[in-house]
């Protein structure tokens, strides 16, 4: 996974989760990134909403527990919006 969308997600996730960009992979998730707790999850959601100009539904927020899933939710949402 090295799409432009993934790269943008990776950059934001690294920034919010306070880890270096190369530590973030598609498999990065709440279970293997130590700083990815409830508050950081909220900050991630808010950062993606601001960056991409979207608003996530509560059900979508639940799915966003890994970088791969975040990219999938965003891709679906952006395609739907365009």
């Amino acid at each position, binding site marked *: 996974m090295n799409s432009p969308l993934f790269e943008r997600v990776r950059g934001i996730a690294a920034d919010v989760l306070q880890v270096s960009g190369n530590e973030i992979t598609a498999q990065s998730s*709440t*279970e293997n990134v130590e700083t*990815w*707790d*409830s*508050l*950081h*999850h*909220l*900050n991630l*959601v*808010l950062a993606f909403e601001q960056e991409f100009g979207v608003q*996530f*539904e*509560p*059900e979508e*927020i*639940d*799915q*966003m*527990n890994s970088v791969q899933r975040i990219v999938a939710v965003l891709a679906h949402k952006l395609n739907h919006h365009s």
Partner: protein
Amino acid sequence: MAIAIRPYTEDLIPAVKAFNGRLACGGVAPEFHFPESNIPYWLRKADGRRIYQEYYLAVDSDFVRGGFILKYQDVFLNGEMRPVVYYHLPVSEGIVNKAYASVGVHLLRSALRMQPMLFALGMGGFDRPLPQMLKAMGWSLCAVPFYFKVHHPARVLGEIGPLRQGAGWRGLADLAAYTGTGWLGIKLVNFMRSRSAPRGLSAERINGFGLWADDLWRRCREHYRMIAVRDRDTLNVLYPADEKFLCIKISVGSGVVGWAVVLDTQMHNNKYFGNLRVGSIVDCLAAPENAAAVIQAATRLLEDCGVDVIVSNESHAAWCDALGSAGFFRAQSNYIFAASKSLAEVLAPFGTSRDQIFLNRGDGDGPVNL
């Protein structure tokens, strides 16, 4: 994981018990566990009642992963009655299992989708997770000032928790209590800070709120930018005559100017109050110009009861002044008011309106710790 927010029904009780079990294994204190009954223990929904609670759960197939409580109550807001909902006890499995880190945001976003005019109250201080989350989501936050007045200085100096946190303070408090210097100092300050009561002030113990309470509510509500309904029906639900509350009606001359609800509680190894007998001014109502009369009457009642210390939280400027005039000291507050974006817009500018809002320990989840 496909989590859905559902009303708490009886069939989910075993799943809630299992959820609480997982929280307990993760070291979460019992006060943050979710109720193990789907019927609210306080303010259950009843025909015609405008103040009630509803429980909601985050359900993931057969598992409960979180929950929250909404308390519905009409609020007089900017001169009109509107439903404003209190969001409380949001609890998520994310606090013990990071796989569910998203549940807290899901709960809050779901509650906002159901009721945009939300507020939270209490929460234990700005540094706790919930206020931090609310702040990140753009809610407006402020502390509701906390006041205390010492009635039995020697006992208070010997017992009170925050004063005894450090070894130095502990020793000083013991010395002041033992030698009597603390007693003398506090009595002197109380005397200097207390103003005399208004002429003709009288207070009467009541068992229930009558029609006069409706009349008083209609006269007083216009004075406040935001105040939860305190009419006769609501007060008789919140403060039933057969419970521990001491209720008084305050008059000046022949006119009723206000009421107060107080508690006289013997604490036992309490983390803040040790074994003190704590009086609390839980709730009250009057027009701002009569706040001092009500606070003085409530304070006198509690002092006559023999409490060691009296505490209160009040947000409105006139009530803060009234507490200061009655000899109360202001201390750091961990009783936080948070308004959702929709509510804060109605209260804008929040920085100015926050001391025109009427909030005290009768709001939110009531005097649960008093």
